[in-house]
């Protein structure tokens, strides 16, 4: 087994001598003997790095991964986790050990690298959302949603939260889990066309937050103007869950009047990774900055007058404010934020637009091709963009299982979060700039075979 501890037996005995001890066991004298573990842990003996590699290969072979050039599944699954291009340059830069093995930048004088990268990340998120303030990351889209709702509720002193069913069902579930602690009351707005219908919600009593996706989980473009009107009517802050990949082609949520824009930024350089680590982004209007959850990096000067960066307005944070903090978040997803800054630098203005456009173009083509298959039809009527849900002649989960054998991850079979709605059992497909015409044609052929079998 490898040994990552440098101490030789001689080192240990001379250090123990210095401490006046005769064995390492004595180091634990403060621990009552009654509770000390009197046996070894029942964990296998350590193995060598080489043996671990073989074990990883063996276990990994039991997974079906997507997107590898020339092997793996062709990916049509999305729902907040997308198969976008990650270039070698992003991997190389984000993988630098200075970024990977640093701690939270508590000593700014030796952490300008991470701090400046986070400052640039915040600047990118500001532009993408259209808002002036962005924090330096949260765990994932669901965590960003929870924090957004907490902020809105605190700001508006009202625990009623109206949320569109078009927000990611897992995120809605996380929100509900945490609402058990905060006591927020959640109310669901339905999606008759695929887009949210606010009219059926009681607008006479106030709400703290109104939450909507853009595009939403079913891939539909929501009318945010209506959402804004509804939020104003109930006196709530408008929280928009944005798919940031569409920012290059869509009007920004801020332009539509959003107060808080959050979302999942995995799409910008982070691997699919079976769901994590991902990256929750969070942006808001300036007035809300003192309630901002998580870390915020600001520009300043050093004593010699040079530009420098530092985490700022820390009085919001838990290590200072403790039980009165705006959030309990401490460790966040800094490395993913740095990755995103690099990836957005790589994409640039033109690339970001191109990725949005190409994804939409692929979805458009696929809609045309796939809905030609007998019994396959779109379940929504609201305008789609780069994702859409299909009704199939046989249950979507069976289709997904069957198509894995054909080399496709067909999409997400809608179930949890859509129980009892017309969307239950539909197949949600997502498109990125990596999907080719050939892949879509092959997929259509395979799907046709499976649904007509």
């Amino acid at each position, binding site marked *: 087994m490898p040994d*990552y501890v440098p101490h030789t037996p001689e080192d*240990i005995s001379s250090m123990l001598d210095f401490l006046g001890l005769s064995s390492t066991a004595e*180091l634990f*004298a*403060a621990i009552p003997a*009654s509770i000390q573990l009197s046996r*070894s*842990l029942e964990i*296998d003996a*350590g193995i060598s790095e080489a043996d*671990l590699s073989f074990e990883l290969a063996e276990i*990994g072979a039991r997974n079906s*991964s997507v997107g590898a050039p020339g092997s793996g599944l062709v990916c049509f699954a999305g729902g907040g*986790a997308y*198969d976008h*291009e990650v270039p070698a*340059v992003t991997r190389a*830069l984000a*993988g630098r050990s200075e970024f990977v093995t640093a701690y939270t930048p508590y000593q*700014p004088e030796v*952490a*300008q690298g*991470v701090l*400046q990268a986070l400052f640039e990340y*915040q600047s990118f998120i*500001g*532009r993408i959302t259209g808002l*002036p303030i962005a924090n330096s990351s949260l*765990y*994932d889209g*669901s965590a960003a949603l929870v924090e957004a709702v907490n902020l809105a509720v605190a700001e508006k002193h009202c625990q009623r939260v109206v949320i569109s069913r078009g927000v*990611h069902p*897992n995120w809605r579930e996380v929100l509900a889990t*945490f609402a058990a*602690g905060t006591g927020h009351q959640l109310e669901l707005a339905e999606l008759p066309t695929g887009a949210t219908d606010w009219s059926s919600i009681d607008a006479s009593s106030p709400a703290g937050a109104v939450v909507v996706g853009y595009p939403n989980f079913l891939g539909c*473009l929501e009318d945010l103007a209506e959402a804004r009107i509804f939020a104003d009517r109930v006196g709530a802050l408008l929280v928009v869950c944005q798919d940031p990949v569409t920012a*290059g082609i*869509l*009007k920004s949520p801020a332009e539509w009047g959003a107060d808080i824009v959050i979302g999942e930024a995995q799409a910008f350089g982070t691997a699919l990774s079976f*769901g994590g680590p991902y990256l929750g982004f969070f942006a808001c209007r300036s007035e809300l*900055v003192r309630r901002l959850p998580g870390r915020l990096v*600001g520009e300043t*000067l050093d*004593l010699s007058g*040079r*530009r*420098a960066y530092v985490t700022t307005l*820390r009085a919001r*944070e838990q290590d200072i*404010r403790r039980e009165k903090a705006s959030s*309990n*978040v401490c460790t966040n*997803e800094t490395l*993913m934020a740095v990755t995103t800054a690099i990836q*957005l630098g790589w*994409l640039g203005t033109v690339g970001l637009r191109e990725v949005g456009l190409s994804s939409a173009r692929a979805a*458009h083509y696929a809609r045309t091709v796939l809905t030609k298959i007998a019994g396959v039809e779109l379940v929504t009527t609201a*305008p789609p963009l780069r994702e859409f849900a299909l009704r199939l002649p046989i249950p979507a989960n069976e289709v997904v299982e069957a198509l*894995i054998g054909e080399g496709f991850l067909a999409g997400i079979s809608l179930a949890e979060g859509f129980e009892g709605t017309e969307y239950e059992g539909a197949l949600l497909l997502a498109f990125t*700039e990596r999907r080719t015409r050939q892949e879509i044609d092959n997929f259509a052929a395979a799907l046709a075979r499976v649904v007509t079998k």
Partner: protein
Amino acid sequence: MSAPLMGDASEPTLFEFSSPGRRAFSLRTTDLPDVPMDALVPRPHQRGEPLEIVEVSERDLVGHFTRLAHRQYSVDLGAYPLGSCTMKYNPKICDEAASLRAFAGVHPATPPSAAQGWLQVLVELEEMLCEITGMAAATLQPAAGAAGELTGLLLMRAYHAAKGDHRTRVIIPDSAHGTNPASVTLGGYEVTTIGSDERGCVDVAQLREVLGPDVAGIMLTNPNTLGLFEEDIVEIAAMVHAAGGLLYYDGANLNPILGVVRPGDMGFDIVHMNLHKTFATPHGGGGPGAGPVAVSQRLVDFLPGPRPVRASGGVGFELVRPPASIGRVHSYFGNSLVLLRAWSYIKLNGAEGLRRVAEIAVLNANWIRASLRDLYDSPYDRPVMHECVLSVASLKRATGLRALDVAKRLLEFGFHSPTVYFPLIVEEALMIEPTETESPETVAALVVALRTIAEEARADALAGVALRAVSSPRTTPVERVDEARAARQLVPTFDASSYHH
């Protein structure tokens, strides 16, 4: 824009390298029909102005972020004795594990039948963490320690609620990490803070006073943030349980107890762990982490779902929802790649390796304490576990030297600073955690540096000159940073910057 390197100029932002028409990206050839914008996006949704983010060449992108990396300290560059952070060396093999396509390329919506490898890793990790902590089951979903805390508190709440027991308060010692009280609030409880006694441990008498039928539980860090083991833990556990409360173990710093003592055996009901500390996941400059929560048998049914488990049939793995699940606490299964690293780390070390981690982490910390206690105050003068808290209080009175100055001056010696001003109950605190991966030589060099700083301060004070440490650091990429200015004139994005060139 030039590209300053060896010089001491600061690095421009990426935005300042931007020039219209430059590009780094290239994408797959898709052969898709070129549909016009209007057919893709209804007019009202179309952007008016193009979204300008940046336009740089790949060359400038690489130069910029490589130079930024050279302005960043990291474990790979040197010792990082930040107390409570466990900045140990992280084996490179774990980075490779996390970059394997067979794991990193798996979509979270992949059906369990096609993700058996992942489910195996998650289940095995859960089992190993339960053995390490002495608990019955665990959720791997929480993405960091604080998320684990909140999850734990919601489990506590669900447990009491299921018994129809409405409790409103959670007890926390004054030495606790800030996330504890913040999580308690989000968990819907009120915080009751209790003090530490002269030993630096929970004041048992005070605890007895505040315990009552409205107490949902207590959150303890053991060893606590002073690096001290709560010797009365068995008694405390009995008291809290007797009062109908649960015991929550903040296991952010599990390093010193691996294979030595287990929270479950101490009587705890809920334990969160920071895999990004103890289990050698690099900290990423502030994350990602992973904060699994392990629980005793009576809480298992409340765990978040979906939960990877061994298949009921005996072969393979499946996802289940515990019967009284509090629900999801993460979009998917948690920070899976961090979990894979921790799994790898435990496999590499094995039982003996983990115990060795604990022994040496504690040995290093005690050696440091013993080597510095003549020059720095040692407020609770007892042997410590994995870290020691010293105080600059006497030196400050004698010379004006503050903990902050020590931290800044130490940077000039090539070390990262310890944690300062925490725990809050120690004046001018220096919280030093060497970890087990720093050699005796490195630990000794750190001691020499800290002794030098104290002695310099005495000499300067005697000579009546300004303390050297107050104007440090000077050999770092920037000198001491003006934190007040950052807050006063908030510049949170490049667009808000006044430094347009």
